[in-house]
């Protein structure tokens, strides 16, 4: 029996970049196969070649043993390939059935046969266990359900091979479980799934085999169950990577940040304290007031009542400039929304917020020499790639954007660091770097408040862990004595055991 997909010696060049070089990739029918690699490793390019969005510059593509001669999505769909994009392509005001049938609507005369469309989509969702109401409007659905509709869309077009591009990036843990169940049921019915990701945990949880790409070339294909996370990480990055955070015991001193009875939107009587030289982690399911707390602690939101004191100064009604003067540095939740001006160069972003310092301005004019010299120095120290101060920040990978932000914020020499999801959407190699930088700040005597959606990150980095639920701090435990189960219980609103 031929393989479902065979890509041999694939070559794809862009001006100035070789995205795929002699890539070999093969997937057996009926398996769930992960395609992993860091951002920019060439995963998406390879899949776009398979789906016909790009024509390769060299190499052969065979689907179920038949060589692809024409590269277009239409040809790929005809060959039985379907792609679920990372960013969904659905019409929000139309119903599930209308979206699934878009472009191949059943008709009665000149009219759209809505009833038949809904029956067909209903039958399809029944067959694959993708439960969703065919008559519901897309805009009423959760992200997890929207993804199901995307999968249905692909199945309705007769796909036997499904490509899913980072499908878990937008899902909650519960929705991830549902997706896994869906994928297992698709596999049971003989479908082949290609799963693009850079999260190691899910690779081992759901896939049969995995292929690693690095810098546009194949590193190898291995059986998922027989390979450890560390081995996969090493294949991806090209050197041994520590997935553990190495740090000594904290030596906290006096409190830097004191929050007392803080009330604001979604925040209900929050009291906490961050001491110099420690990392306080905030664990909690997203949407329990973390975002609002972050805003209150960086001058973007005024407290309704209560006190927020940084370095002895009450800042509960102060704006960002006063917070920065008092010693704040921020790694914001959303890099491109709050952390960077995407259209500005790396050098311009490295002075954002510090551009009024005498070093960077004189008599109203920008001191370009100092700005550029410092940019080069920071790019080198924080290993920003490409090491180019004049490229737009938007064009950098997530990890390098984050490095730019961290470089800028740490050059404030803060006494308090607010780190929100510091490694979200960041490559493994960069995660290690960022964690080290945060621990180094702690060791320098900075108080760090860490908010992360990844419980494992909170547990690995923090010295103490505060759990947030419903806008309150429902418990504070020392990281040494914390375990996932008891934290999970607190995060779900249960009472602390002690």
């Amino acid at each position, binding site marked *: 029996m031929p393989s479902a997909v065979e890509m041999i010696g694939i070559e794809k060049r*862009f001006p100035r970049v070789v995205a795929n070089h002699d890539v070999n990739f093969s997937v057996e029918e009926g398996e769930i196969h992960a395609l992993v690699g860091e951002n920019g490793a060439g995963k998406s390019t390879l899949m776009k070649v398979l789906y016909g969005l790009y024509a390769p510059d060299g190499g052969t593509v065979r689907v179920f043993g038949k060589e692809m001669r024409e590269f277009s999505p239409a040809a790929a769909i005809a060959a039985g390939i379907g792609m679920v994009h990372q960013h969904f392509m659905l019409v929000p005001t139309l119903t599930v059935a209308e979206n699934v049938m878009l472009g191949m609507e059943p008709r009665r005369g000149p009219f759209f046969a809505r009833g038949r469309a809904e029956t067909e989509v209903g039958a399809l969702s029944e067959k694959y266990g993708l439960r969703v109401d065919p008559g519901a409007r897309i805009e009423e659905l959760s992200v997890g359900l929207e993804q199901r509709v995307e999968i249905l869309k692909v199945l309705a077009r007769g796909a036997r091979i499904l490509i899913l591009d980072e499908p878990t990036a937008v899902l909650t843990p519960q929705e991830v479980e549902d997706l896994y169940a869906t994928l297992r049921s698709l596999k049971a019915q003989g479908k082949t799934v290609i799963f693009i990701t850079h999260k190691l945990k899910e690779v081992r949880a759901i896939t049969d085999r995995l292929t690693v790409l690095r810098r546009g070339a194949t590193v190898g294909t291995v059986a998922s169950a027989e390979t450890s996370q560390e081995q996969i990480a090493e294949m991806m990055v090209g050197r041994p990577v520590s997935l553990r955070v190495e740090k000594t015991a904290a030596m906290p001193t006096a409190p830097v940040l004191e929050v007392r009875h803080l009330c604001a939107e979604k925040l209900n009587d929050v009291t906490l304290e961050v001491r110099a030289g420690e990392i306080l982690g905030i664990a909690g399911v997203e949407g329990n007031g973390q975002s609002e707390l972050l805003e209150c602690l960086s001058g973007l939101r005024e407290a309704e009542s209560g006190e927020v004191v940084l370095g002895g100064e009450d800042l509960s009604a102060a704006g960002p400039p006063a917070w920065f003067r008092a010693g704040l540095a921020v790694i914001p939740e959303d890099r491109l929304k709050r952390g*960077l001006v995407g259209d500005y160069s790396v050098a311009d972003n490295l002075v954002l917020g510090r551009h009024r310092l005498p070093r960077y301005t004189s008599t109203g004019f920008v001191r370009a020499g100092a700005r550029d010299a410092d940019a080069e120095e920071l790019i080198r120290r924080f290993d920003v790639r490409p090491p180019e101060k004049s490229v737009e920040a938007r064009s950098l990978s997530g990890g390098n954007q984050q490095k730019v932000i961290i470089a800028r914020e740490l050059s404030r020499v803060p006494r308090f660091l607010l780190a929100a999801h510091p490694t979200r959407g960041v490559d493994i190699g960069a995660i290690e770097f960022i964690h080290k930088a945060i621990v180094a700040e702690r060791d320098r005597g900075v108080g760090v408040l860490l908010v992360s959606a990844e419980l494992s990150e909170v547990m690995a980095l923090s010295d103490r862990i505060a759990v947030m639920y419903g806008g309150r701090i429902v418990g504070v435990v020392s990281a040494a004595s914390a375990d996932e189960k008891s934290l999970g219980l607190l995060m779900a609103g249960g009472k602390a055991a002690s």
Partner: protein
Amino acid sequence: MNLKSLWPSLLSRVLPPVLAVACAVVLGMLIVLALRLNPFAVASEVFTTASMPPVGLRDDVGYVLAYATPLIFSGLAVAVAFRAGLFNIGGMGQIMIGSLCCGLVGWKLAALPMLLLIPAAIAVAAAGGALWGAIAGALKAWRGSHEVIITIMLNFVAVALTDWLANGPWKDPHGMAAQLPAIAPHARLARLGTYPVAAEGTPPSLGLPIPGYVPVNLALPIALLLAAAVWVWLWRTTAGYEHRAVGHNPEASRAAGISVKRVTLRAMALSGALAGISASDLVLGYKHTFRQDDAMGYAGQAFVGIAVSLMGQNHPVGIVFAALLFGALQHTGVLLKTIPKDLILILQAAVILFVICGNEIFRRLLARRVRPA
């Protein structure tokens, strides 16, 4: 930055407008063909009319520059607001208020010597325009009112206000229309051209080989200086850095400690001031008084300034070239004989449409070729 990396960025900026103009020209020719006329014959007729003796093309060059002058001012005004993420379509009102202020100073402060009077008139015109823009800026910054709505409304307020003042308290007792008394003779800006005989009452002139009756005047070099100043301010000063940062990403700017409110207010005030300085052309260089109906016709050109800024990619250099192109289009309209002058309006609209579409199409083509992932 080396030449290699400069070239594509320059190309991507210059090529779309050039292609847009080319497409618009083709469209214009098709329209002329649809009128059952030969487009090349029309073009040669325009050229013959333009190059008629005794002055040949010299007055045409002058007129193009004269038409371009207000478009540079209003184009810069739109661009400065746009760079901060704001859309100022109140150039008309700002020019009306600026012109009234200018006419008032030129008339009331006639006792001042020329070297004080002209700068004072221009400064007060700028202040008037700035005030008019700042109203919209303040409402936007502190009340969240949309600047587009506010500036449109302020256009009407400015027309009504200037009409009342020029018809009532400040009306020229000898004038027939709603107008202020003439400005002092020494407040007039010199024309660039030459008068055959310098008669009594003619404005001062510089003596360039352009006929003196063409109203192009020293406001043109003022406009060019302002274009240079806008460039320096936007790209070389710390205030300009904040200004553009807010335009690109107000959220990140606020989080970094930049006062978005202050930048918004300043942006609208500066934008209004640039529009207001247009009065130096209308009042000091051209009409030598504030006459309400003239001012309305002139200030209406501010809407063309939006197109100029767009076509010039909101960049001072681009704006100067775009203003010259639109100035040339307007003058061509005057020269057309056998076909309706509406063709010029159609061409202007076509250029704008092609610029907008062309930019986007070209940008996407480039992005597809360069993006590796």
